[in-house]
Structure formats: C-alpha cells, structure tokens
C-alpha cells in the first residue's frame, strides 16, 4: 500500500520528509548556538578546573619538586640495598639548595608523613652538612645519624617518587601506606580528618532536621493564611534570605556573646547565674543556631510553594469522611507535601555540608567543618593537592546525595520558589 502513495513534495520538488528533517536540524543548530557561549564559558572556567583539581589531587609534586636530582638518580636504584654514591651526592646537592631556600623544614614534614623519624635526622643533617667536604657523600651522610644508613629511610623517600598517588585521599580519611605497602590508619590521637567528616555530617544532618521542624509549621501558615496577611509574613522569610550572610552572622555574634542579649535573657529569667554565663559561641552551639537561622528560608520556600498548590478542600474531605484533623493531616496533607520536604531537605543539607563562612566565625575549634579544613590547606599550608583531594571527596559525597535523592524522589519533583 505505502509504496503506491506518491511522495509528498515541497514546492521546490524536495520530498517533504527530507525538507522537514533539514529544518529540524537547522533549528537544533540554532538552539545549540544560543547555548554555546555560556556552555563553553562554564566548561573552560569551571568544569576543566575541577578536572584540574583531580589531576592535582593525585599528582604529588611536593617532594618530587624538592628533590629533583635525587629522584633522577634513584631511577636506577633497585630499592633493596643501600643506594650508591650517586644517589647520596644527588640528595646532598638537592638538600643544600633546600637549606639555602630555608625549605628543608617542609621536606622533613612531608617525609615524616611517609615515615616517622625523618624530622630529627633532617635537622641533624642540616647542622652537619655545613662542614661537609667535597666527595664521598655516602660516608659523610651515613655518619650523621645511623638512620641515614638504614635502607628503610631511603625506601621511604623513593616511595614518594611516583608522580601519581592516592595518598592524599588516604590522608583525607586518616590512613596511610606503611613501609610494607599496607593501608593502615594513623594512630588514634592523630585522626583529625575522620572527626571532621563525622562532625560535618552530624551538623548538616541536625541543621536539616531543625530547619524542617521549624519551617513546616510556618510554611503551612503562610500557605493557608489569606493573601494580605501571608504577604506581610513572607517578608520575615524573604528579608533574611536577601540579607548578606555576613550581616546575619555578625548579628549572631552579637547575640550569642557572653554579655549578649541571649545570655542576658537567660540570666533575666533565672535560668543561669550572672557569673556563670554559658559559652554559646565558638563551639558547636554557635554553628547550630546560626546555620539553622541562615538556612531556614531555603527550607520554607520550597515547602511553601508545594503547600500553596494543595487544595484546602482535601483536608475538609478527609475530615468529612470521619478522620480527626490529625488523621486527615497525616494521611492526606503530609504525603502531598513530600516533594517540598525532599527539595527543602536536599537543599539545606547540601548547603550545610559545604558551609564555610559561618562555622569559621562562630564555630570556634569544635564547630568547624570540612570546608574550613580545605580553606586552611589552600591558604595556610599551601598543600593544594591535599585541599583538592578533600574537595573532591566532598564533591563526590554531594553528588552521591543527589543520586540517591533522584532514585528516591526524582529530581524532577523538586520545586523551588
């Protein structure tokens, strides 16, 4: 049958199907060209740099850059017996240069990560190396300390040689590769990062819970009040939302300080004694209170926009069918708000997990999060590859949360503003 139907042609004599496909392709290209500038911009300035972070995080240049000649000489060394004079001479010349630049302390810190005991022997070597004579460096270096004659320490240096390593990631969860190549945890008293990860999760989780508990009633009120009242109350949500983060943090610093209004109030109602005012800032409490208030609008807005669409007649129907208001709420209203709850919790949790400014100002030592550690390594220790590794671990976590959320609720169910 179909072969008998004559092909429909356009006025130019081209089959309609071909002409349509052409037009479709042209439209596709047109749409893509509109998106292209921004897409290129974001890819070059943002997506590639994140890839660059990945490169940096596994590319351990710290030690290789400090001891270039040593690693070159070590290429020939099999790593079983003590290395020969060539390696010692190369190490000596690298080391003298480091001492001139006053960077030998960094080297000892870095090598100490790989094997304990480097700190003291490097200090000793620095003192003795000034009086070294030319030639036969192997003997002279070995004479400085018996550990320099121990092959394990040279193996430890060689272990730092490979250009690509996952050791920064291991360090991020307080583990390291020991002499035998096994992956083990660092001693209990030095496990700072695990504590930080757990604290970050804990604070993000509880801030999300607090935000949800506080946002649900007011979102409900805003959605059910008549327009003229709800618009006014909406300002209470939107004004903090539009106000500078630093301004809001500053106001919490004033309120929570020991002579602050919150403490004054507690003293006033006799909850605490005047001379025994509790420390509410520079600890976890500070982080909790300030972050909850700052992130609350991000929970209220999605909840509100979902609740606004729920018809009040549904609750009335539930009640008229014999449910008590609580049953009607729980069986009818609450399930309908789940997309809003999902969106709000996701938003608040992800914002909280990457929070930096507020914890740094009101969190003190016990209220800081993983982001603060990343910033610390970016700005103070300049260990950028470690900062990159931790950043990527955090990013993986955030993306995993998105993925789980997408599986459970579906990302399309998100409603914002």
């Amino acid at each position, binding site marked *: 049958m179909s072969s008998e139907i004559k092909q429909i042609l356009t006025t130019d004599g081209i089959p309609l199907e071909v002409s349509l496909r052409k037009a479709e392709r042209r*439209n*596709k290209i*047109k*749409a*893509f*060209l*509109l*998106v*292209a500038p*921004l*897409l290129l*911009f*974001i890819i070059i*300035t*943002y997506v590639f*740099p994140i890839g*660059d*972070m990945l490169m940096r995080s596994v590319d351990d240049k710290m030690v290789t850059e400090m001891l270039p000649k040593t690693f070159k000489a070590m290429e020939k060394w099999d790593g079983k017996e003590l290395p020969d004079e060539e390696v010692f001479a190369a190490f000596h010349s690298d080391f003298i240069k480091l001492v001139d630049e006053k960077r030998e302390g960094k080297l000892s810190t870095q090598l100490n990560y790989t094997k304990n005991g480097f700190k003291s022997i490097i200090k000793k070597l620095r003192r003795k190396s000034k009086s070294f004579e030319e030639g036969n460096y192997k003997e002279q270096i070995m004479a400085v300390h018996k550990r320099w004659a121990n092959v394990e320490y040279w193996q430890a240096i060689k272990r730092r040689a490979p250009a690509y390593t996952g050791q920064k990631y291991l360090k991020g969860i307080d583990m390291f590769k020991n002499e035998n190549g096994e992956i083990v945890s660092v001693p209990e008293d030095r496990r700072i990062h695990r504590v930080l990860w757990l604290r970050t999760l804990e604070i993000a989780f509880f801030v999300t819970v607090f935000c949800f508990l*506080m946002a649900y*009633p*007011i979102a409900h*009120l805003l959605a059910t009040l008549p*327009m003229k009242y709800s618009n006014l*109350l909406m300002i*209470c949500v*939107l*004004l*903090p939302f*539009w*106000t*500078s*983060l*630093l*301004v809001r*943090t*500053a106001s919490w*610093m*004033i*309120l929570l300080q020991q002579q*602050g*209004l919150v403490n004054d109030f507690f003293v006033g109602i006799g909850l605490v004694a005047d001379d025994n005012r509790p420390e509410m800032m520079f600890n976890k409490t500070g982080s909790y209170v300030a972050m909850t*208030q700052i992130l*609350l*609008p991000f929970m209220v807005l999605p909840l509100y926009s979902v609740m606004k669409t729920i018809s009040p007649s549904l609750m009335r129907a539930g009640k008229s069918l014999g449910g008590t208001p609580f049953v009607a709420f729980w069986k009818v209203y609450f399930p309908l708000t789940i997309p809003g709850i999902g969106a709000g919790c996701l938003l608040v949790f*992800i*914002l909280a997990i*990457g929070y*930096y*400014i507020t914890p740094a*100002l009101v969190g003190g030592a016990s209220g800081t999060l993983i*982001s603060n550690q*990343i*910033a610390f390594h*970016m*700005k103070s220790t300049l260990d*950028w590859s470690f900062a990159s590794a931790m*950043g990527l671990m*955090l*990013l993986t976590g*955030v993306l995993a949360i998105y993925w789980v959320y997408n599986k459970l609720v579906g990302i399309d169910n998100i409603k914002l503003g």
Partner: protein
Amino acid sequence: MALPKYTEPHYRIWHYVYLTICAAVFFFLIAPLFVIFPLSFNAEEFLVFSDGMKRLDPDAFSLRWYKDMIYGTKNPWGLATKNSFIIAIFATIGSVILGTVAALGLSSRHMPYKGLIMAVLISPMIVPLIISGVAIFFFMAKAGLAATHLGIILAHIILGTPFVVITVTATLSGFDHSVTRAAASLGSNPVNTFMKITLPLILPGVISGGLFAFVTSFDEVVVVLFLAGLENTTIPIQMWTGLREQLSPTILAVATCLIILSTLILVTAELLRRRSERLRGINR
C-alpha cells in the same frame, strides 16, 4: 484562620499552640536582624547595650560609627564599596547576557541533550562554594587573572548565571511562541523580534535573575577570599576580616546599610514577581 465555632476545645488549644510556635519561628528568623540597628548607633565602643541605651538616654546614641565608616582614617570601606559595586554590576551584566541567551536556546524544543547541558550550566549553584572557590582559583591563577577585577568578575559570572538561566527558563515556560512566529511572518528578523517582542515579555524574569546574580556577587566571600588581592578588596571581605579580628561597631554601621540595601532589593524583587505573575495570567 479563624476557627469554626464548633471546634472542640483540645483542637482549639492545639491551634493556639501552633500559632505560638509559628510566632516563635518568625521571631527567630527576623529578630536577629534588628539587633544590629540600635547597636550601630551606640556611642560607646562595646557591642553590648549600654545602660544609657537601655534607659533610651539620647547621649548614649551617636552617629560616630557612621562617620568612621565614611571619613575614618585608613578606612577600607570606600575602596571596598567601589570595588563591590564595579564587580557586582559587571558580573550581573555578564550573567544576564550569557544566561538569557542560553535560556532562550534551552527553552527551544529542538535543543539536543537538554538535561545534560542544563546540569552542567547550573552546576556552580549545586557544587559547594568552597570547591568552586578552589577550582576557580586554579583557573584564574593559570590564566594570570588572580588578584584582578576581571578575574573576580568572571568568577562571579560563573556563580551568577545559574540563577539567570533558571529564572528565565521558568519565565519562558509560560511563553506563547506563536507571538514570535507572528512577528516573523510579518517580516521581522530574529534580532528585532527578540528585542521588540520576546524581551519585553520575559523582562521580569530577566530582571529577577539579574537581581539574584547581583546579590550573589555583592555578597560573595568564599571565592573572593581566594582570588582578591589588596587592591580588589570588597565589602564582604572587609566584613569578614573585621569579624575575625575585632568586631567593631563600624561593621555594624556597614551592616545596617547592607540591610537597607537588601530591603530595597527585596521590594524590587517582590514587585517584579507580582508583575510577572500578572503578565503570565496567574491569578490567585
């Protein structure tokens, strides 16, 4: 929210408990902002309410911190304000142009790989700021743009475009495409159609996206902390340093000005939202 007359007593009680909870939450949200106002007029150097202030003694109040903010010796606020506005304005212009054009493409039903591209474009909004900060810093350092205005402006364009893309695509979702076809059939070229027909209709979305981009840039501190040198200091950086070192009342004076600014932005955004809803025929 008046209760019907037949409401049973325990539900009546519950209703008042619920209203009290709501009032407490609203208080928690808004009250902290109002601590700043009176303290910024404090005549003394301490950040607590002095006895004079509690008695409302006029001598306990003064404008000295506002004077310090404007005329203070070696004060950084003038330069910071100038930088903040320059950076925010250019970042907004950049975000609005790039974002609006991209949103036009994304709203076309012919757009291939829409989901994937959208995910890439809004990723700067989703990725934690500290990670964006590190990544952008690496790029700017390589490109030689660290500690320059241009570098910070580009960084803020990255952070601001997702808001423009989202608000403009949302506005375009209710857009009747037959009007552009009508314009085309009447002989208008695409650029003319965009300027005369499309843009005026989506303008509320564009402006509110622009407001988001402006506020993002104006309030941004994490990325700027990595990028800025002494010459590029901004208001948030000065606030940050001030809050870390010594919390002076001058900061509160600045904070008060910022609250006033955010109130203005809020009012503009609200008016625009209502106008946009009216134009799109959403009546409530």
